[in-house]
């Protein structure tokens, strides 16, 4: 938000007391209201919930990561940064963190590109647009457990799954261990995720497309710009902000990968798909080491924080350099 700079100073209104804070320059009243206790009353319920369910757990979790607390909440001794030191030396922590990052890279690119392509298609295809919208967005409305069971039990089973049948149609050798071979398991999870969630990005892009003013295209057409040129010089630049948003949302969503892996491969084969959140779960809930699990969570939290801070900064630099 930039400060409001009134082009024409409005006449001071006599019915309002001038100025609020002591010594404040007389602002054009009515443009900026000072913070009133009324506002506070309205946001209090939200602030309370926010503090109770987000801020307090954040602080509490950070505290736990400095102790040897177990799942029963007893036996917590202050251990300082020992948990962090152990996590940094723990190869399983690094490999699970890498799996999370790798999944994010593999899934974000197709999810953004396919989402955009589908939106362009739906936007161009003026006929039965509602059908495209529904069919491309529908998978997103399914719960993850349904999607994962569907893919694990019907699409990916070796030999008789839909995926293998499809390969056999093309004369390729079926019998690939889609979920059971370390070379393909992560790709299969990515495929599942793309099918399931691409509808969300598609919808964001479609909304953005519909808000591009029509007169730009009309002007370009008068100047004899081809459809390709219109896409390249009008549509894509106008979608830049949306792409930024889609990218951030997608990266954050992909980093949180847990359920698909847990339901489809259990982190296997041989830990090749285990994401960091599953490692946290295993350390905390299977291994009872809540303190250590918290430390790993906070290392992951730092990574997410980094991503969410770097992205807007990058976007700003791009815009400034223009």
């Amino acid at each position, binding site marked *: 938000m930039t400060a409001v700079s009134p082009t024409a100073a409005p006449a001071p209104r006599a019915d309002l007391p001038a100025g609020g804070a002591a010594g404040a320059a007389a602002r054009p009243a009515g443009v900026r209201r000072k913070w009133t206790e009324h506002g506070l009353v309205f946001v209090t319920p939200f602030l309370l919930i926010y503090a109770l369910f987000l801020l307090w757990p954040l602080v509490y979790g950070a505290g736990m990561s400095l102790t*040897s607390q177990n799942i029963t909440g007893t036996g917590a001794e202050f251990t300082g940064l020992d948990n962090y030191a152990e996590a940094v030396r723990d190869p399983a922590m690094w490999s699970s963190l890498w799996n999370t990052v790798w999944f994010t890279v593999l899934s974000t690119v197709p999810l953004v590109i396919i989402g955009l392509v589908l939106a362009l298609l739906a936007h161009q295809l003026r006929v039965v647009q509602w059908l495209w919208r529904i069919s491309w967005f529908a998978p997103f409305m399914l719960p993850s457990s349904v999607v994962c069971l569907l893919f694990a039990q019907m699409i990916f089973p070796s030999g008789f799954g839909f995926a293998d049948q499809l390969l056999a149609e093309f004369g390729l050798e079926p019998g690939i261990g889609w979920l059971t071979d370390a070379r393909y398991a992560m790709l299969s999870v990515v495929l599942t995720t793309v099918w399931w969630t691409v509808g969300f990005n598609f919808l964001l892009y479609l909304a953005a497309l519909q808000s591009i003013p029509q007169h730009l295209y009309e002007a370009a057409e008068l100047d004899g710009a081809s459809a390709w040129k219109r896409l390249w010089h009008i549509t894509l630049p106008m979608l830049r902000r949306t792409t930024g948003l889609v990218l951030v949302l997608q990266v954050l969503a992909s980093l949180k990968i847990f359920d698909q892996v847990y339901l489809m491969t259990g982190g296997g084969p*041989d830990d090749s798909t285990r994401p960091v959140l599953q490692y946290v779960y295993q350390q905390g809930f*299977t291994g009872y080491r809540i303190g250590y699990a918290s430390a790993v969570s906070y290392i992951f939290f730092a990574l997410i924080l980094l991503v969410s801070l770097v992205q807007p900064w990058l976007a700003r630099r791009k815009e400034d350099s223009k």
Partner: protein
Amino acid sequence: MNPPLPSRRRALAGGLGALAAAGTLGPFAAGCSAPAASASGAARLRFWHLFSGGDGVNLAKMLDAFGADHPDIDLEAVTLQWGAPYYTKLGMAGVGGRAPELAALHLARLPGFGPGTLLDPFDLDLLAEHGVTEKDFPPDIWRRGRVGGKQYAIPLDTHPMVLYFQTEICEKAGLLKDGKLAPIRGAEEFTEVLRRVKQATGRPALVTETLGAESVGGWRLFSTFYSQTGGKVLSADGKRLVIDDAKALRVLEWMASMTAEGLWVRRVDALGAVGVFNLGKTGFLLGGEWEVTTFKTNKVPFSMTRIPDLFGRPTAQADCHSFVLPHQDDRGGAPNEAAHTLVAWMLKHSVDWAAGGHVPAYLPVLDDPAYLKLDPQSEYRSVLEDVELDAPAWFNGSASRMWIELGDVFSGVLTGSRTPRSALAEARERIRGFLDTPNPLPGAAS
């Protein structure tokens, strides 16, 4: 007249029926005749367990019978999902002060489960009143339930890995004598047998769990065959890594060769393995004996036997189901006595339990004609002398971190994503990691 009590949690009911001995007779109860099995007048007994499938059906029948015999006990059985989630819940229940009176626990999990803090000891005198004493159990298994001179777990059974064989296929391959599998000695001979079956069927001869989510098959197989070489993973006190590389490699290389040669199905999870055998596609299944109900129900032509001695000793990996008393701040009175009553009753009726494949730990049952009549469930009972339980360490036992982690590593050997050498190095690394980590739960033995 007394008004009916609104709360079932009052131990007033202790004055009723068979439990009058130590019940706290409230002033109200005097002169009151025992009502027939009214919930408000019975001792509350909550029992948590992880038995589903065939075991679950058997247990439900047994508990119904128990309920009919004991109108003075209000039994609430809760079935929870097998595995890590069960132990998470059980551990946290005790902390929340809402622990059940009685629970099932895998015996090898005991050292890591806070005996003395999360678990209360049994009252052996009370059990003796019900006719259950130490001499009724195999000494080794009974000892595994002892920590610091107190008995925290009472074993119900032992459940080893066994060998299932499909009688029609084995007959065709000429492996049967009088309906029984001809004795097999040594890994070479067993490999030869598998080749013959493969020739007869044109398919892999044996199926066993090689992968899956939180798969523990890899660990069970390794533990079985490695223990046959006489090797140990941990020292007897569970504090040192004593794995014998040469022996472990020999076993891992043999396991790898089985799937590489196509004698074992290469990629299949636990449910899939049962499904493959159930369809009669393979001659053999290496698995836990608890699948017996499934195959009997589906009329598969099969029988069971002990896993043959391939590497020098006829041992098999096993764990035991046992009873424990989750910690309650105010344990005692009628509910606690009801828990002891149920334990003793279950042991004495473990013939019914053995129908699910488990070998009863309560020795008097082993000579019971009703047990000996169980076919094929009593075929492999001699394994009781040769079961290999995990060494007592906090990270050991069914569905423990170690099972799951090493299950993953050894799964790689079977599916070909790891060499035996790299699997051994990785297994050593992970066990060292566990040994370097102090037991997260307090008050445990090691």
